[in-house]
């Protein structure tokens, strides 16, 4: 049975109709526990990552490294997660400030960007692995399901560095493909993701 009010379908087929309940739609939460990777693959494990939404938002929370000096990275797939190796051109700049007041500065980091690189893209500077150290932030991926244009992303993260510094990291760029992206994978640039979670939302 559905529910129709003033001619508008509010509920049907066991779910709220589109247009009700807000524009930020939760899709999937993955929790790391000494995990090598966290992968969001369209059509697998209830993940939606296609043309359903024009924008997808990943929230990265309390990502904790198992070892010092490793950072979170991501890559995208156009073959359902078989390969994560799409060419990307990215930018990377960060502000940094020490707990002791040292070296408040902003700078572009050439070693952390990609120029048509198929490797994983950096989302932060290397973080510390002290018990209370972690990183949090967001990654927005725009219209990954379209097949006309390259796919853009923007990310901002806040990171606790091993040397007790706070870094504010801004990355952006595009996956240089007109093929639809249908999977996104996160991993550390070395070692495992000790703990933390990543949520995927669609923005209607």
């Amino acid at each position, binding site marked *: 049975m559905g529910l129709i009010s003033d001619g508008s379908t509010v509920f049907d087929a*066991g779910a709220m109709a589109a247009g009700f309940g807000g524009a930020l739609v939760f899709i999937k939460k993955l929790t790391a526990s000494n995990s090598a990777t966290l992968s969001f693959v369209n059509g697998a494990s209830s993940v939606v990552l296609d043309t359903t939404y024009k924008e997808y938002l990943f929230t990265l929370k309390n990502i904790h490294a198992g070892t010092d000096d490793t950072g979170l990275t991501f890559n995208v797939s156009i073959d359902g997660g078989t390969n994560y190796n799409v060419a990307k051109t990215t930018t990377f700049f960060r*502000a940094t400030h020490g707990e002791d007041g040292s070296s408040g500065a*902003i700078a572009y980091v050439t070693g952390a960007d990609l120029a048509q690189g198929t490797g994983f893209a950096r989302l932060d500077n290397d973080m510390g692995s002290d018990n209370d150290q*972690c990183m*949090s932030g967001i990654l927005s991926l725009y219209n990954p399901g379209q097949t006309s244009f390259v796919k853009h992303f923007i990310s901002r993260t*806040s990171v606790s560095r091993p040397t*007790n510094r706070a870094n*504010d990291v801004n990355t952006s760029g595009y996956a240089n493909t007109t093929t639809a992206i249908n999977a996104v994978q996160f991993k550390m640039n070395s070692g495992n993701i000790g703990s933390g*979670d990543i949520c995927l939302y669609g923005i209607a």
Partner: protein
Amino acid sequence: MGVISAGTTLLDAGALDSDVATGKMTLIKTLTASNSANLSFVHGASSVIFDGTYDSYVFKFIDIHPETDDAKLMVNFRDGGTAYDAPKTTNFYRAQHGENGSNGQQGYRTDDDLANSTAVQPLTMDIGNGNDESASGEMTIFNPSSTTFTKHFCATSSALYSGNFAMQSFAAGTINVTAAVDGVQFTMESGNFNGVIKLYGIGA
């Protein structure tokens, strides 16, 4: 009366069933400043939720208009006591551009960052108090109720400086405590202010 569709309970006992997928950005509280010294969001007071209910929280500050010319909007956090004095290590950088085309530039602001300090943190550059001058923006704080990790926040704002400059500001950092953060307070660098601040919870 309940509503059951396709075997799924949608409405019962005057509320949506918890399994019904809805939007995940929830307005928690709107506070309006009218020549106010501060606006405070405290978990458990005045219907404010600021705990482990949501994964992250977003504050939107809209049309912040200071009573004193060229004052910054500031923020601080409380971590268990009643004082807003949690230690923070932060970054602050900004871009600016004059209405007359002058001084388009960006840079780090050592005067506006904190090094493990309990002081208030600027969220904007100086806001003019001319009739049409104000600032708007947002701040995200990730998992403030964690008792394992430090807490990260990121803020972005746009302000109109009295000298007719557009000022885009970026503030981010670490609240350097493992105790839960249960309150957030907004003030001006000097004097009172007007405007609206909304608190949203981002769920999973």
